Structures are given as structure tokens and as C-alpha cells.
């Protein structure tokens, strides 16, 4: 029984907690037990079980007192990118070795205020840079889905979050998404992940990768769970100048499943050359499902799509090269040991060479290059212009009456760990081809599990919504989820 509790969805657990059918202490213990047995997934990288137990006890008291917000007593996993007070928060990087912030990120503080229980910190790609969770200082996180001998990637960068939710190590988890880091791992592990509109969740206290693209969001077992958890995470934060002062509606209440008359756009530019047939087929099935649910399907054009990936891989590294300058060994984290006679320049060089992994170094160098005198206009400014055009493509589609856009979430199912290690880095970047446009345009996007591929691995579809209309988007996703009827779970091998 104990081990089954953690398999609940957030909504189920909430209702059971409120009904007194179980306690948060029991539920938390159940999760901790599963986490303890799931070392092979390498999803949780910092254990906060003592804190979790204390928070569960507090949550039970609140529930008893009848003061129970939706999240109260729900055991959650937190991506290592979130600064959590007194708890190691190192963005899966050696350079933040030993760093325990004295502050709590706004999103995790919101979750805590809602009674959420933090089980521990989750694995991820270093500084959220990666699509396979292979750049982590903690080692690879492993996908609980497995169809042969190969260990598969859970995707990235929120790979630990995806693996943990898919393997029922926690009820739900936080993720962050700069170019697809919530949606791609969600698709690879058969769970739901939403990247809200840029500005919906505060970035305060989340280690920055690319400030104009980063957004936090929930990774959950169902669309309903995503709606509930997003409501708790979101909200205006005066400490983040880019946080929007817009009310957060009751997203769950908007899940009617009724999408009759909604216009769903199918962008022809997302039909990429060489796209696997099973992805194509899934996309068509998804389209049919929405049509059957009463939506109007419309072919649309987003003409600048093909420039999105290159633009993204200019803008994101540019911002990252500047955001990561603060990791210099002077004030916190890793500092290299110096030889006699070495000075500040050597300290910077050695510290950063030792502290950052290869992918982070690559992006810092790319970013530095594209911002350099003489290249700025050719790369960075051009990429910004492309970004404006991509946003305009979406704006025009929405102005023409489109309510949401359906695309594949990823160009493939989960691939094997190490499989890409010799490939050109650009091959890895291609994972983001369907997701980066959404970050560039600041729109909400959700990945919904929609079926299995021939080998038995989950595949996801992405829905893209109008800015600030996550409620509407979640409702469309809810309809898609219901129609797809995806209930498969990975067989436990770990």
C-alpha cells in the first residue's frame, strides 16, 4: 500500500488528504521509500528527507485545521536550478559545489506557502544546458522507460524531474524551460509539462541560464495536476522586473474538456524534412482527436520557424555568457587552488575551467563570440530581429482566430544515453526544434503524452497557446489528454 500511494496524481492525493484517507506523513514516507529504491535513476541528487518529514507534519496539522490549499501535504521534487534555503542548490554544476543559499526562490516559496513538501533536489543538465541530462555534475539521470538493454535519456534539462515524476518517486516536480527543458523531458517520459507565458512565474531565486527565455513550470502526471500546481507556482513578484502583474485564475476550474468551436492551428513549417513517420502519425492522430472533440482544424503558416533554432542558439548562449560571469570563484562555490605567483586571471581561468563542464564552456564561448565587437550585429542583433519576426508569426496566427497550435513535442522518442556523445553538438540542439519558438515568442506551451512509438516508448504532442491564456491552453490539453487516453506507465526495472 505504502508504495502505491506515490503513484497517485496530485489531484487524487489532494482529495485523499482532504478526506482524511491518508496523511501527508504517510504519503511523504511512501515517496521517500521509492526514492531510496530508485538510485539507478539518479533522479534525486540532494536528499532533504528530514525537511520533508517536518513539512509533512506541518501540512497534516494544516489539513486537520481545515486550512488546506491544493498543494498542502503534496510531496514534490525540486529541480536543482531552484535556490532553496539551507539546501544545496548547484544547478548540477561543479562550480556551485557546496553552495547553500540563504534564500528561497519565489516559486519554491510559493509552493511551500501552499503546504507543498520538498522531498529533495532533482538532477538536471548543468545550468539547464542540455537535452539529455548528460551534462550534469551528478552524472546522467536515467529514463524509467526502457525497452531493451539500453539505458535511455529522460531528456533535458529537467531530466531528473521527468524521471522522478514518471517513476512515481514524487507526486509532481518543478522544472524550468529555456528552449524546451520542461516539454522535451515530459514527452520522453510520458508525463505532462507546461512552460507558462514568460513572466507568469517569478525567476527570482532560480539560477539564470538565459534570462529572456527562462520560465519555471510544473511537471506532473496529468493536465489537471499541471493546472493545480501552476496556480500555486505562478503570481506577480515585485522582485522580478519581468514578472507580470496579472491575476492568476483558477486554472483547474477551467478544465471543462469542452473545446467545441476552438480553432487549432497546424503549422506547416513544423513538418520537418526527415521527420520520423511515427512522429508524423502521432501528430495526425492528435489532430484528429481535437477535431473529434469539436475543434476546427486549420492549416497555418509560421514562416520564420526555420530561423528559430539558430536564433535561439545565438540569444541563449549570449545571455548565458553574461549570466555565468558571476561564477568566478571569488565569493561562493568552487575556487581553483593556485600555484605560487598566480594571480586573479589564473584564478578566473582555472576556476572556470574546472568548474564548468564542456557544454557550458561551449555555450559561454559561443555567447562571448556573438556579443563581441564586430560580430554583434551579424549575430546577436540579427537573432533579435528573427525573434521579433517569430513572435509576429504567432501574433498573426492568433489574430486570425487561432486559439492554440498543435505540433509534435520532440522529433523523436527518448534516445540512448551516450548515443549522442560523439555527435555534432548541433544534432543534440535539434531536439529543441519544436520547442524553442515558444520560448522566443514568450508563449505558453504544454507537452501532453499522446501515445507510444513502435518500440513502446512514450511520445508527446505540444500545444502552444495565446499569451496569458494558460487556462484555455490547459483545457485544450485536457481534451487532448482525455482523447489520447494515455495511461501507460514504465515497467519497474530499477
Amino acid at each position: 500500500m505504502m508504495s502505491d500511494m506515490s503513484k497517485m496524481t496530485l489531484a487524487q492525493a489532494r482529495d485523499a488528504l482532504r478526506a482524511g484517507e491518508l496523511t501527508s506523513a504517510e504519503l511523504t514516507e511512501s515517496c521517500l521509500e521509492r526514492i531510496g529504491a530508485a538510485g539507478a535513476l539518479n533522479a534525486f541528487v540532494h536528499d532533504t528527507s528530514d525537511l520533508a518529514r517536518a513539512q509533512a507534519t506541518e501540512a497534516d496539522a494544516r489539513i486537520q485545521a481545515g486550512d488546506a490549499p491544493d498543494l498542502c501535504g503534496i510531496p514534490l521534487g525540486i529541480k536543482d536550478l531552484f535556490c532553496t534555503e539551507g539546501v544545496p542548490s548547484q544547478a548540477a554544476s561543479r562550480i556551485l559545489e557546496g553552495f547553500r543559499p540563504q534564500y528561497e526562490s519565489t516559486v519554491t516559496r510559493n509552493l511551500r506557502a501552499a503546504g507543498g513538501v520538498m522531498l529533495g533536489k532533482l538532477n538536471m543538465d548543468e545550468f539547464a544546458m542540455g537535452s539529455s541530462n548528460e551534462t550534469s555534475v551528478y552524472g546522467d539521470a536515467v529514463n524509467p522507460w526502457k525497452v531493451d538493454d539500453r539505458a535511455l535519456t529522460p531528456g533535458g534539462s529537467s531530466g531528473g524531474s521527468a524521471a522522478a515524476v514518471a517513476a512515481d518517486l514524487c507526486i509532481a516536480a518543478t522544472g524550468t524551460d529555456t528552449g524546451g527543458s520542461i516539454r522535451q523531458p515530459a514527452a520522453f517520459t510520458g508525463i505532462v509539462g507546461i512552460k507558462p507565458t514568460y513572466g507568469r512565474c517569478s525567476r527570482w531565486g532560480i539560477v539564470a541560464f538565459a534570462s529572456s527565455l527562462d520560465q519555471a513550470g510544473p511537471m506532473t502526471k496529468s493536465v489537471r495536476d499541471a493546472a493545480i500546481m501552476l496556480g500555486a507556482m505562478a503570481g506577480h513578484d515585485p522582485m522580478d522586473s519581468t514578472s507580470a502583474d496579472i491575476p492568476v485564475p483558477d486554472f483547474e476550474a477551467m478544465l471543462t474538456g469542452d473545446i467545441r468551436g476552438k480553432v487549432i492551428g497546424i503549422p506547416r513549417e513544423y513538418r520537418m524534412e526527415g521527420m520520423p513517420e511515427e512522429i508524423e502519425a502521432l501528430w495526425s492522430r492528435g489532430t484528429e482527436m481535437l477535431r473529434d472533440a469539436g475543434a476546427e482544424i486549420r492549416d497555418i503558416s509560421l514562416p520564420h520557424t526555420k530561423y528559430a533554432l539558430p536564433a535561439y542558439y545565438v540569444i541563449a548562449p549570449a545571455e548565458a555568457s553574461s549570466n555565468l560571469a558571476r561564477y568566478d570563484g571569488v565569493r561562493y562555490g568552487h575556487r581553483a587552488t593556485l600555484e605560487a605567483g598566480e594571480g586573479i586571471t589564473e584564478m578566473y581561468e582555472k576556476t572556470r575551467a574546472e568548474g564548468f563542464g564542456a557544454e557550458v564552456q561551449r555555450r559561454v564561448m559561443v555567447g562571448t563570440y556573438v556579443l563581441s565587437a564586430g560580430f554583434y550585429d551579424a549575430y546577436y542583433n540579427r537573432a533579435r530581429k528573427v525573434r521579433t519576426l517569430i513572435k509576429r508569426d504567432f501574433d498573426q496566427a492568433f489574430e486570425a482566430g487561432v486559439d492554440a497550435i498543435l505540433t509534435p513535442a520532440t522529433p523523436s522518442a527518448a534516445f540512448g544515453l551516450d548515443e549522442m556523445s560523439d555527435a555534432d553538438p548541433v544534432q543534440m540542439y535539434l531536439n529543441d526544434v519544436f520547442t524553442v519558438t515558444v520560448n522566443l515568442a514568450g508563449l505558453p506551451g504544454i507537452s501532453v503524452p499522446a501515445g507510444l512509438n513502435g518500440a513502446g516508448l512514450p511520445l508527446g504532442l505540444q500545444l502552444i497557446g495565446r499569451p496569458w491564456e494558460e487556462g484555455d491552453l490547459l483545457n485544450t490539453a485536457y481534451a487532448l489528454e482525455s482523447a489520447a487516453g494515455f495511461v501507460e506507465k514504465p515497467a519497474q526495472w530499477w
Partner: protein
Amino acid sequence: MLDLTYAPPKPKVIAGAKHDWELVIGMEVHAQVASRAKLFSGASTQFGAEPNSNVSFVDAAMPGMLPVINDFCVEQAVRTGLGLKAQINLWSAFDRKNYFYPDLPQGYQISQLYHPLVGEGEILVDMEPGIARKVRIERIHMEQDAGKSIHDMDPNMSFVDLNRTGVALMEIVSRPDIRGPEEAAAYVTKLRQILRYLGTCDGNMQNGNLRADVNISVCRPGDYEKYMESQDFSHLGTRCEIKNMNSMRFIQQAIEHEARRQIAILEGGGEVVQETRLYDPDKGETRSMRSKEEAHDYRYFPDPDLLPLTIEQAWVDEIEANLPELPDEKKARFIRDYGVTEYDASVLTADLDLAAYFEDSVGAGDGKKTANWVINEVLGRANKAEVTAREIATPQANAEILAMVANDEISTKIAKDVLEIHIETGRAPAEIVETEGMKQVTDTGAIEAAVDQIIADNPAQVEKAKVNPKLAGWFVGQVMKATGGKANPKAVNEIVQARLEL
């Protein structure tokens, strides 16, 4: 308002070995915004605090920390812009200037390269009565200050104090309209005066509150006029920038040295290399800090953590409506309303407190006489003691003393004695005069008796006086002496004249 007319000063000419050279100078002044909190964090800006005590998580660039603009600093910069008659940009934006240094925790300085808050303005730099230079302001942008690296506390280690990190600065950039070392110093003086009037910068150069980077080039007479006509910089020489000067004296010395260095290079057939230099006041020379090739590539780009800064015209209007009277206006008003000379008006308006002190001292009295009194008597003594006028004598005391002089209650000589006693004891002048019996004797009976006595005692002098009427002065002096200086000299003089039948 009275508009003062002025002529521009002559540019400084330096005679080289071969021919004459003129100087062309532009300045970038970094003025610390007077604000209790920093530009993007709530940490205190208090000077002289325990090292690293005024540091927030944002200032220390902890992971995940984000800047939030301090609206008051923006208001101060807008106020400064308005005080310099500048264009206020309702839309501006912040950029990151990237470089590594331990006292720059973020690894970048948040500044405004592409879209500054304040555009073109001007400053009238007074040189002497009737002579002033109008210096054009190119822009004012807001930026963060860096912390302080300390390299001389330990042989092996350097230390960093982040108290100043993130403090708001205004960088006030002039056009190359300054034509000599004295003008450069006068420019900074005038700018500081305006900032202090506005209350937007304390202007304390010793605390690093106001620092200047000076761009200097030299050209042949006539070239500058060609530049002014065309705004084409190719008429001017290659410039060097001297960084971070915090004293008027050093600014002047550095300009002088740098100009001579450039002239020597040019006359020797060489070329001036554009570079950043530092002034060494001990050696009296500038030396290269980094050349153009070594110059940092700052990789400026718009700060994605901050939205563009948009402000409302109505807010700007409100700030403008509440601007204080500025130095030029005050000076003109003093000349007009008090009848003081331009020179005296300049002295009295040099700082806001002195101007208020003067006006309080005038009270219902005579402006011109009060100006003379404040400048010659009070300021003279205050300057000698290296204190402010207010610290030695109250404006009420001045008003009282001058009123007593005007009413013939005391002579101007006695007035100075009263001031001395007031300075020493703080006692009120009227009380001093009363208690010390310093009141002028205006009782003609008493004066007549004294005069008669002197005449009776000095018959020989009386005879001489009849031949030489100038000797009347001797009698007046004797009477004044006999009355302890308290007799009204005018009355004494009249009575002496009458009694001697002159």
C-alpha cells in the same frame, strides 16, 4: 528674469617649440546619485560603513538574484537632466557592460549605452564676471558603481569591499567644448554646484562622490572653429582619456601635462595613440593604462533582467515644476533684487547654504551693504577659520548689527567689534551693544561738552586749524578717543566744524 550677457573665454594656447597649440577637452563625470538605497537593490549607500556591511544578495550577485530599479534614483537623474536643461527620454533601456574584476560581482555593470535616460543639455561655465563658456551636454545615463579592491593590506592577498557595489551613478558626458585646464575645473565646479542645488549628488570629491574622466586632444589654432562649424571630428586631434580623477587640482595638472605630452609627440613628428591613461600626481605625469588594442571588449547587450524604463511626461513635468532655483537664476536675481555686483553674486551663490545665509542676513536691510558685510567681514573670518559663515555668526546677528549701523546706533567700526564678540560668545548683538555700553553717543549735549573740552585744552591746535582746516580731523579723532569710539562721528564732525568756525 535678468539674462546676464557674457562672452566666451579665450581658449588656452600652449606655445610649442614649433608653433602654438590649442586644447580640446570633453569630460565624463561620474556623479553618485544622492539616494539612501542602491540603484537595483535595497542596500544602504552610507559612506564609511564597515566593509561589506551594505551588501544585499543582489549586490553580491548571488545565483538567481535579480535587479529591481530604484525609482527614486531615476527621479534624481531626471531632476538632474532638467537642471541641465536637457532632453528627458521617456523610453530608455539598460545594457550590460561585461568584464571580469573581483569588485564587480556580476561580471557586468548595468549601464545605459544604447538608450540613455537623459539626452542633450547644457551648462554655462562662469569664468569671471562677463566671461562664461556654454558647454554642451551630450547625455546622462544611469549605471551601477563597482566595489573597491584593496591591494595593499596583505603581501599575498587582495581584499574586496562591496559596499559601493551597485550604488547609483549618473554619467554626465559633455561635448568637447572645454578649452583649457581652468575651464575644465570650472566646469566640474559648476556641475557640482548645480547637482548640489538640485540635491541629486553630494558632490564630495574626496569620498569619490564625483569623479571625472577627461578626454584631451590638441589642435592648431583655427581647427576647433572648423570642427564647431561642421561637427566633424576629423578637424580635431586624436584624444587620450585620463581616468578617474577626484580633485580639481589634479584635473588641471593632468590636462596641462597631457597636452604638453601630446604636443611634444606631434612636434617630434609622431602620432598620438588613442588610449586610456592615468595621472600620477606624485610624478606629475600621465601614463598609459591600456591602449586601444588592449581595450576591453565590453560585449554590451540589453539587460534581459530589466524591462525598458518608461516614464510618464506628467511625472517629468511634476519634477520640473518642483525644481529649486538654480545657480544661474539665483545669481541673476541677486544682482537684480539686491543690487550686488556679478562678482559678489557669484560668491554668494556658490553654495546653496551661503545663498540662504545671505538672504536671511539681508532681512529688511540693504542688500548691497549686507553682501559687503557677509563677504568681507563674515566670510573673511570664516574662511580664515576654515568653517562656514553659519558656523561663526547667525544671519540674525548680521541683520541686527547692520540694522544698528543703519540706525546710527553703532558705527561700522563698533559693528566689527560686536561681530567679534558675537563670534566668540554667541551673544546677541543688541545685547552685546547694550551690556558693553557700545551704543553710539548721539546726545549732542554730551558731544558738545567733549568738543568744548578738547578745544579748551588745545589752544595751539585751534590756531593751526583756523589756518589749515584739515586739522579738524584731529579734533574729531580726539573726541572719538575721549568717548571711547561711541560718539556718532558725523555729529562730532559737525560740532567740531561749528565750534572752530570753519
